[in-house]
């Protein structure tokens, strides 16, 4: 069951002129959050902004063996994210959660490939910790417009995550979209597996988990399906409530009868099997 916490800002770290990581003292939410779940956040008590905004939980903060809170990765794009960018230690942010369907985590020997675009990095820090605890081997494909918008690289490296980077301007990693190295590596992994003869064609040796812009998620789902790998994608929608009350955050999902129907991404997602979504 979700709880609402008037969370104190523990610290607020600016990563660039747009991005920040804000740490909130909401241990009851942090302790209950699974990778991919989100919180609905409202800084300030007034009517601007009126509605809460959804954020994937980025990290669970632990100190001396105790959970002390959670962090959110935010990019300044509107009123709420501007307030989160400007927040200082001691400010209060209303935080409701944890909400939504989490990523299903794979166990060794299966590998987890994470694909993040921009602020879509958000679910993958908490995910990395959860996968590391299971001993699952992880790769992070991480793309952004420019190298200055790739964050936490040392954090991921320190946890043994293999990094594959791409930027649109080519300043760091490969030039272009991150789905290009993903497609190439998936193809070669499949060829290597065929040569070794050890892995099945069913694709249950590898799961691709993605979060980012819609076109990136569509590409990930298509690439994974083409190579027989399972994909899970965390979608970003405009949300009113986060609890299934308002029906604003719907996304078209295959209904199993050749048709489609709208599913509320707050309770049916935000993580969906890539194969079940209909891409417009």
């Amino acid at each position, binding site marked *: *069951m*979700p709880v*609402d916490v008037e969370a104190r800002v523990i610290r607020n770290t600016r990563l660039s002129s747009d991005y920040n990581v804000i740490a909130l003292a909401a241990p009851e939410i942090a302790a209950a959050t699974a990778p991919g779940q989100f919180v609905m956040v*409202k800084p300030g008590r007034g*009517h*601007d*902004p*009126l*509605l*809460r905004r959804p954020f994937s939980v980025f990290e669970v903060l632990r100190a001396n063996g105790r959970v002390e809170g959670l962090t959110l990765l935010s990019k300044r794009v509107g009123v709420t994210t501007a307030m989160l960018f400007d927040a200082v230690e001691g400010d209060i942010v*209303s935080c*409701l959660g944890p909400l939504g369907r989490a990523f299903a985590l794979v166990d060794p020997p299966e590998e987890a490939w994470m694909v993040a675009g921009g602020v879509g990095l958000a679910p993958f820090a908490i995910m990395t910790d959860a996968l590391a605890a299971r001993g699952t081997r992880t790769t992070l494909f991480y793309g952004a417009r420019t190298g200055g918008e790739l964050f936490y690289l040392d954090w991921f490296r320190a946890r043994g995550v293999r990094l594959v980077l791409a930027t649109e301007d080519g300043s760091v990693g490969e030039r272009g979209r991150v789905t290009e190295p993903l497609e190439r590596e998936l193809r070669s992994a499949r060829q290597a597996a065929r040569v070794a003869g050890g892995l099945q064609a069913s694709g249950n040796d590898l799961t691709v988990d993605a979060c980012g812009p819609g076109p990136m998620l569509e590409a990930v789902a298509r690439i994974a399906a083409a190579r027989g790998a399972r994909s899970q994608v965390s979608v970003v*929608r*405009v949300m*009113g*409530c986060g*609890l*299934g*009350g*308002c*029906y*604003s*955050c*719907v*996304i078209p999902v295959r209904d199993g009868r050749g048709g489609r*129907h*709208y599913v509320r991404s707050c*309770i049916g997602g935000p993580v969906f099997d890539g194969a079940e979504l209909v891409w417009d």
Partner: protein
Amino acid sequence: MIDLSVQIGSLQLANPLIAASGCFGYGVEYAGTVDLSSLGGVAVKGLFLAEREGHPPERIVETPAGMLNAIGLQGIGVHRFVREKLPELRDLRATVIVNICGSTLDEYVELARILSDADGVAALELNISCPNIKEGGITFGCSLHGTFDVVSSVKKVTHLPVIPKLTPNVTDVAAFARASEEAGADAVSLVNTFLAMAIDVETRRPQLSNIVGGLSGPAIRPIAVRMVYECRRAVKIPVIGMGGIASARDAIEFMIAGATAVQVGTANFVDPFIWPKLLDGIREYLRRHEIARVADLVGTIDTTSREKQWISS
């Protein structure tokens, strides 16, 4: 001991707080954040006979102190509601007000028949005011004859209290309250949302896929209070007030204006734990003003001329 109960026709509510239709799913979604039996009532999302997909996203956009929505009444249809949701709502001991929508008069009547036979429905709210669908609904709610016909037709086939939900998108909402009363309505509820729109000036695109939508939230509250006040003076049946209630103070304002009960919608999105806070606030107010029954607060607006008060003091 403060008595919070209120009477809507033959239906007694434990308190005047009702979760507004379209803002509370089918109620079961909120079972984890509020004890549904602690609410005066739960008005579930508007139902047609058949399932509906609703409009494509974007379906909501925030505006100053409010929000626009054009959901398009996505819903599971009355049959699945009775089969899948109603038993759970019964188990949760919710006082269920079912909001029904029709494309035709016959659809309202059929819905009323089906729900009158179902176990666990306390009242019917007639949605004749959704601004977001082309067919039916608001076409009845924008015509006095249409309103009269829907209410009287539904009344003929049900023993349940019938509450038409009125649109504010008319010149004189009180006339629609009167037409409802003449047709036998047990109460009226108002206001539904105000038809509105918002445009992204950079792209020059409407911010809702439906182009227009309904405005709700604190931004509309003063207009809604005025409309409740007008309806209260026009009819003898209870008026259920809503429109931007975000605190106990706001709920009390509606009751003073003449609302016997109130509905809360958008504020539940912001704070799904708002319900006990609202009840506590109403109790505190009644205690402070030494009012034993919340029903005694209804319509107590003092319109004595302020000028006169000035002279006499």
